[in-house]
């Protein structure tokens, strides 16, 4: 299904590129020894370097370099052994230096790619143009005083990775999948916590539109600082529709920076950013080129965990999962590890079904995450064993699972305590069946007369009579031989 906007003059294609700012996980800042911890008292985590006092010089944090390289490797990207820091000049109260130390012409990471897992189970590849290291700005607070803004520099100088995609996406859903996948990878490798609500991952969206069939790109607009996956998708729809209207009215879309207002569902121009693209970049004379050798890159490469794409492939091959189930399970390491612990030595597909359909649903309802699940992987595994060895049937297993979610109890103990063991005693089942048949002679005759669909009704009645504990296979077999003589 292709996403198109139907205008008055025809069908329009949307072209989307994303710039993600991901806060690097490190103890101290990119160029100073001040702490990066979130939520401290204002200006307590600021060095004189971050406050840009005269004469202070930046010194690069080795771990931030490693984190950028680690992320580059996870994005299958070209790692540049030599990169340059540049000054990006702009004037704003939360940027005490008057420039941001960033990378311009020679970033630390070059071209890479990201594979999107779409909801229908298919995959698409989006190109990564570059990843570079830069400083975060401070925080402005506009709501603390009627006429003044307050500035806290705790965040100023924290390392960011700016990750720029190619304009390869064509629908809002792809942009959502891109962000989810990028976040998943960053969390796997521990380079960014990916928390969009707290602002440790922020997204600028580049949107343009063109009539279906046109191959040239038209002028794009940049929608700044959209802070959730859902808002990114909404902002794209709103901005693309606006641009279609502009073109169709005979006007031209002009390149500008816009803001998305989620409450109104529309974007508006940011006048203050009119000069925003006049950054007058130049190499930062305070910093020498950043250089490292292939040994360094190899050491970082060896520290990488199994990545989501590789894990997904392995789950499909080793456990026979569908691509969709595999992609759901590998979203975060905790879920993947949990699934593997359950699937170990058992049927992979059954394990996946239980983890995805029963466990995830129950956890979401109870507000738990996989990490603090009341049902351990070992306990869920035991429950599957009880089913596999016919101690309980599938229906009872769901009841036992509900008890486990509520109490965290052991499945075997729950089955014993509540007498839920499956009835496999043929005599008992036969007695129940005979009683049901005797109570419903009319319906029994109908089955005998060829209305086999009614057999299901009889199975239900017998299950009810045995408190759901009868082995459904046995019930079926005996019923058939009783009613159809087969």
């Amino acid at each position, binding site marked *: 299904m292709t996403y198109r906007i139907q205008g008055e003059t025809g069908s329009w294609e949307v072209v989307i590129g994303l710039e993600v700012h991901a806060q690097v996980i490190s103890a101290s800042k990119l160029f100073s020894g001040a702490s990066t911890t979130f939520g401290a008292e204002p200006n*307590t985590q600021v060095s004189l370097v971050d406050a840009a006092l005269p004469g202070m010089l930046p010194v690069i944090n080795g771990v931030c370099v490693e984190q950028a390289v680690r992320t580059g490797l996870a994005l299958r990207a070209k790692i540049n052994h030599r990169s340059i820091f540049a000054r990006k000049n702009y004037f704003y109260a939360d940027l005490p230096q008057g420039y941001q130390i960033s990378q311009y012409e020679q970033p630390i990471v070059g071209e890479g790619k990201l594979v999107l897992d779409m909801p229908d189970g298919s995959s698409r590849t989006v190109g990564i143009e570059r990843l570079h290291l830069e400083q975060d700005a401070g925080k402005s607070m506009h709501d*603390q005083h009627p006429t*003044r803004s307050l500035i806290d520099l705790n965040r100023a100088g924290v390392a960011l990775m700016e990750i720029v995609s190619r304009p390869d996406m064509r629908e809002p859903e792809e942009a959502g999948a891109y962000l989810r996948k990028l976040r998943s990878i960053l969390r796997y490798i521990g380079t960014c916590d990916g928390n969009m609500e707290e602002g440790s991952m922020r997204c600028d969206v580049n949107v343009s539109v063109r009539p279906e069939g046109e191959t040239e790109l038209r002028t794009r607009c940049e929608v700044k600082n959209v802070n959730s996956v859902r808002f990114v998708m909404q902002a794209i729809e709103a901005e693309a529709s606006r641009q279609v209207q502009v073109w169709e009215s005979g006007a031209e879309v002009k390149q500008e920076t816009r803001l998305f207002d989620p409450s109104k569902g529309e974007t508006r121009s940011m006048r203050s950013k009119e000069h925003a693209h006049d950054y007058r970049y130049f190499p930062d004379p305070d910093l020498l080129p950043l250089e490292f050798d292939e040994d360094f890159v190899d050491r970082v490469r060896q520290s990488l965990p199994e990545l989501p794409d590789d894990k997904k492939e392995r789950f499909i091959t080793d456990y026979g999962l569908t691509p969709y189930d595999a992609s759901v399970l590998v979203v975060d390491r905790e879920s993947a590890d949990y699934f593997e612990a359950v699937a170990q030595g058992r049927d992979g597909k059954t394990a996946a079904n239980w983890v995805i359909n029963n466990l995830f649903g129950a956890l979401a309802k109870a507000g738990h995450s996989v990490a603090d699940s009341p049902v351990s992987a070992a306990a869920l595994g035991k429950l599957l064993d009880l089913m596999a060895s016919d101690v309980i049937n599938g229906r009872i297993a769901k009841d036992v699972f509900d008890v486990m979610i509520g109490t965290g109890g052991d499945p075997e103990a729950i089955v014993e305590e509540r007498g839920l063991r499956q009835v496999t005693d043929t005599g008992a089942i036969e007695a129940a069946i005979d009683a049901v048949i005797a109570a419903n002679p009319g319906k029994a005759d109908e089955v005998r007369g060829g209305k086999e669909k009614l057999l299901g009704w009889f199975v239900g009645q017998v299950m009810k009579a045995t408190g759901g504990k009868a082995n459904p296979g046995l019930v079926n077999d005996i019923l058939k031989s009783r009613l159809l003589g087969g």
Partner: protein
Amino acid sequence: MALDKTTVANIAFLARLDVPQDQQEALAGELSGILTWIEQLGEVDTQDVAPMTCVADLALAWREDVITDGGYPARVLANAPEQLDGCYVVPKVVE
């Protein structure tokens, strides 16, 4: 390279310098003179010369990722023209 008055006004705005209109013309002349003088460098053949980003042939020194600084908000704010609740106070800047 010659700069005109409009370019000078724009550069002044970006640098937040207050250059009165009646000085812009003169400044344009002075800046153009400096740029023209620098442009003499264009006469040098740099065909096989790698771009230089720094004068010394040194590599960048790396720091360990440890917290060694911060924790002195009073020093950080010492030069602030105005402060409140541990923050710098500036004219309201908001969209």
